[in-house]
Structures are given as C-alpha cells and as structure tokens.
C-alpha cells in the first residue's frame, strides 16, 4: 500500500478518467487544486457544495469533482447559480467561468450578479483567449494581439475584469495569477467565506493558444511572465501610472460589507409570513 496519497483524491470523482483533459501545463489545473485545497481546509461538507460552470476549458472543472456539479450553458453559470442559491440558501454555491464565458457572452449576468449581491463565490479563469474553440480573441485579449479570429491583430481594447466587477458592486474582488499559489489560496478562502457576491480573477496560462501569441512557448515561460509582470496591490500604491503600465496588480481589490439579496429577501419573507 502506498504511504502517501494526494489530498485531492478525497474530492476527485473516482469514476472519471485521469489525467484530466487539459493540455500539459494548462493553468486551470493549478487553480483547481487551490480551490479544492481551500474547500478541504474550510471543512465544507461535499453535499453542501454546488459547483456551477459555463462552457469552455475552464468550465470543464466541475465534472471532475465530487460535489453537486452543474455544467450549465456558455456564459450563463451565474444565472443557474442564482436559482440554486435562492432556492436553497444553505448551499455553498461556487461558479467557475472562463473569460469569454463570464465577460463576453455572460457579461450582463456578471455585472448584475455583482450588483444584486446574491452570495455566490465566483472564479473567472482568465487566459485571455477562447481556449476551447481554438484560440479566438476574447474580451480580455490585448490590443494588437494576433488570434485565430484576429489574424491581423486584435482591433479592440481589453476589459479589466476585476475593475468591472468592482465597479458593479461585488462584495469582494481579488486578482491573482496561478504562479502566485499562496496568494491564490488566500483569495479563494476570502471569497468562499465572504457574505454576498465575490469574484476572484485568476490569470492562468493557456499554453496552447495565448502563450504562442506572447512569444512564450512553454508553460514555464508563461508562469515566469506572470511572476515578472505582477505587482501586489500594496506595492502598486507606491508606483506611478507609468510604472504600473502593463503590470498585473494582484491581491485584494475590494472587500466591503453589503446586504445580500437573500438576506434582504428573507427579511421580507419573515414579515409577510408574520402577517
């Protein structure tokens, strides 16, 4: 018998085939491990966790884990999650989305979920590309980047996902890269334990598509790029806008107390049931 076993096995579906489908060195798996590690640390019952995803490489995550899992439609994970949470507020509802998923086709749901503040811990795996469909531009693809749908270079400006969600009113917003694993785990934990809507933007390498455009040819180069181009929120405060240009600001970007929709609604229900 083996003396060691990886803790994730407690959460992986034994009936699923491993290794998983993601390409060698894809950042999604690194995020997945952090998420499971934090859930393990927090001691949630597997029965109480509902993991909802959209469609995309990132959204393939839930099928591997032994929770209540809901692989919804492209862009709409938050809508399904909202229904689950309001129908049974005792459940711990988590959503996993890609950048195209959450910000392009699902952009409207994202800002309204942040505004509405239903307690959902959401994670957006931002690899700056449509991975699953083969490397087309996403709303976070940098201006000028050549993609399979922008063969002459991307003509559009990119979204700042965290800025968008913060402006829309989310109770908690954080950004990390998968290189910064300890920070990623801290942010995941804060998000999971936050009252109200939270969002963590997880910058992750798509080795097969976006790496190539940046001239980065391996997962190692891409993670080194994450390391070398990130600054913490704390350090960023001392930098001029010029110094910050092109940098990824990582850490807690917003953390505030706001009444959640369920709490407000529960008050209303209690009043009505009294009458």
């Amino acid at each position: 018998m083996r003396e060691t076993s990886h803790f994730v096995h407690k959460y992986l579906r034994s009936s699923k085939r491993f290794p998983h489908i993601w390409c060698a060195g894809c950042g999604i798996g690194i995020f997945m491990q952090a998420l499971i590690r934090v859930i393990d640390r927090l001691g949630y019952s597997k029965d109480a966790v509902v993991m909802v995803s959209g469609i995309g490489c990132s959204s393939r995550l839930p099928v591997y884990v032994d929770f209540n899992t809901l692989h919804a439609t492209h862009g709409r994970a938050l809508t399904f999650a909202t229904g689950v949470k309001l129908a049974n507020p005792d459940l711990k509802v988590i959503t996993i989305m890609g950048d195209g998923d959450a910000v392009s086709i699902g952009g409207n749901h994202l800002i309204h979920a942040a505004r509405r503040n239903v307690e959902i811990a959401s994670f957006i795996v931002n690899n700056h590309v449509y991975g699953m469909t083969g490397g087309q531009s996403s709303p976070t693809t940098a201006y000028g980047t050549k993609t399979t749908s922008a063969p002459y270079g991307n003509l559009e400006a990119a979204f700042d996902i965290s800025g968008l969600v913060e402006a829309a009113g989310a109770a908690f917003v954080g950004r990390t890269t998968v290189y910064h694993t300890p920070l990623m785990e801290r942010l995941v934990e804060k998000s999971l334990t936050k009252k109200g809507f939270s969002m963590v933007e997880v910058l992750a390498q798509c080795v097969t598509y976006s790496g190539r455009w940046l001239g980065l040819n391996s997962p190692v180069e891409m993670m080194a790029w994450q390391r070398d181009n990130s600054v913490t929120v704390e350090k960023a405060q001392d930098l001029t806008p010029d110094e910050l240009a092109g940098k990824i600001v990582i850490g807690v970007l917003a953390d505030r107390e706001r009444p959640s929709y369920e709490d407000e609604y529960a008050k209303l229900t209690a009043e009505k049931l009294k009458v």
Partner: protein
Amino acid sequence: MKKERQEERPSQVLLQGNEACVKGALLAGCRFYAGYPITPATEVTEVMAKDMPGTGGAFIQMEDEIASMGAVIGASLAGVKSMTATSGPGFSLMQEHIGYACMAEGPCVIVDVMRAGPSTGLPTQPSQGDVMQARWGTHGDHSIVVLCPSSVYEFFDLTIQAFNLSERYRTPVILLADEIVGHMREGVVLPSAKDIELENRPRPTVPPEWHIPYGDPGTGVPPMPAFGDGYRYHVTGLHHDVRGYPTTRKDEVEALMRRLFSKISNDLDRLQWFDSYYTEDAVMTVIAYGCVARAGMQAVREARAKGLKVGLVKLQVLWPFMRRTITTILDSSEKVLVPEMNVGHISREVKRVNRGNCDVLTLNKIDGTPITPGEILETLEEAYP
C-alpha cells in the same frame, strides 16, 4: 373564526388570466419564480412579486429572459418547483435553456403569453404565432409538452397541470396562452387547495451509492434528488451516460435520446386533453385552441341555431400532437375547420394525420386582430357539406 370559514368555502372571484396563472402556480407548489417584464405577460411577474414572499418561496426579477430561465433550472435542480413567464421576444431568448431543461431533465414551467410577431411585433395584440416555436424553438431533436388555455379558469387549471406534468416527466412544460386569455377578466370559482391533486418528481428511494442519476427505472423518468440531499451528481447539457457524465459513445447517446423521447411518447394516452361540444352528430367540426376556441364556440352555437350539424373540439394539449384524438374527429366528420391566428401551425399537423377521408379547411389571421365568431360562422356556412 367566522373569517376562516368564509375563506374555506370556494367563492367566485373576478380574476385576470395572468393572475389566475399565478394562483394556479402557487397552489401547484411553485416556490421559485424568475422573470423579466414583457407585455402581455408582465402581470404574471408583478403578481408573483407580490404573492410569492408570503408563501416562503423566492421571487427574483432577472436581468433578461435567458437569466430567468437559467435561474428557474437552477432552482429546480435545488429541489423547488419553479416557473417563469414571458412573451415572444423573451420566449425566443429562453430557447437555449429550454433545451437544457429537456436534456438535463429539470422540471419547470414556462408561460408564453403570445403576442403577434415576428420580432417586437404587436406587443399588445393577440396571436398564436408561437405554436411551432414552442414545439421546435430550441435546437436539436427533443420532445416537449405544450398546453394551451382558452379561459381564465383554464389558465388557472392548466398551470397546475403544467406543474404536474413537468414533475411527472421531469421535463419543461410550456403553457401557451395568448394576449386575450392573459388579459381578460372572468369570474371563476377556484377549488380549495385540498381538492387539487398534485404530482411531485420521483425521488430516489435507494441510498446515494446505489442511485443512478440518469438511469431508467422502467418509467423512463429517473428519480431526482435535490442538490444538497446527499446524492451528489453531475448535471450537463452535453449528451451524458447514465451517471450524468459527458459521453460521445453511440450506444449511450442513443439510449439517452430514446429515453428522453419515450418517457413522454409512451404516455400519450394520458395526454389527450380536449373538450368537445356538439360533436356526436357533427358532419363538420371546428378544431380550435386558445382564444380562437372561444370564437369557435360562439360560431358553433349560432350555426346550430341555424340548423347546421357542426361541433367544436377545443384542444388543451398542443404538443405532443394529439394524433389519436384528431384522427377520431377526422374519421367522424366530413369536414373540419381549423381556425388559427397564425399561418396554420396546427392545421398543418391535422393535414399530416388526415388519411384523406376528410376535407381540412383553414382560416388564418395574422393581422393582430382576433378571429371573430362571425368569420368562423361564415366559413362554416360556406363550406357546410
């Protein structure tokens, strides 16, 4: 004490169709509603907003109809009977998720109070133009149940039945009302809650280790646990094996598709819902549904007064198409007339099942105005054999 007794006795109330729909839904046990305002269905959302909190259920106005339908499926998977209501443009937006509910077998009710289309169309005017969309609006082969009320009471009653069927078959059920039925007011006597028979989705009776989330227990309808019940499973819109995991295996895909169809098609006997009037000796029969059935009723009465042997069959189930019922009518009548406020969605089906022994006449109107009893009567008189 006195007050309570009064409440218990069913008394006549004046209700709008859309209000009656909400009353039916809440009596059926609907405890989650998500919607987005749209004429002529808005009252359903408004009355739900007012009445749902008092039941302990949840109401939410979503950012659009795609979101409403997503939330409805999410709530259903969490174990709660759930519903949304909309009209044409919103119904179009819901289509992807209606297919999802078919595939993932999330019971839910979708109310479409039809207005004239295409596109923004005639928001305040009636139509029956969504009959084919209700059948085939979402992509891919699928089965669907569609009910159609023609009065305020029927809107109430069929809403309850829509929930019952959705729970029985674990499938989305569409309630196709129209602007007239949604907005008109009628006095109705509502039954008391204890007199209403309710169906609930089958629940697993075995421990989680033995439960097969998408297996066929014989009825074609797998027992459905709620998220949080301890039966952790995977739900997806992809074709899936009996455990719910994505598959492309031909045998597994075929078994899934067969089951999804047969769970409803094996039960067609129980889905022949119609009312017939003066049909015993009728040589000519009007086949109608929704608001047009009301005009049809009036026309048939007037025709009878003139001595014409005509009858009316009012359809309550539109899909799956009631082939059995319709062929019986086609066999016993020399002619049938199918008046519709569309270009002929149901008459096309009637012609399809007609074995040539009956003349199938149509009367179609797509100008946003209702078909009148006079128009139907005129056609009956002209074509009377």
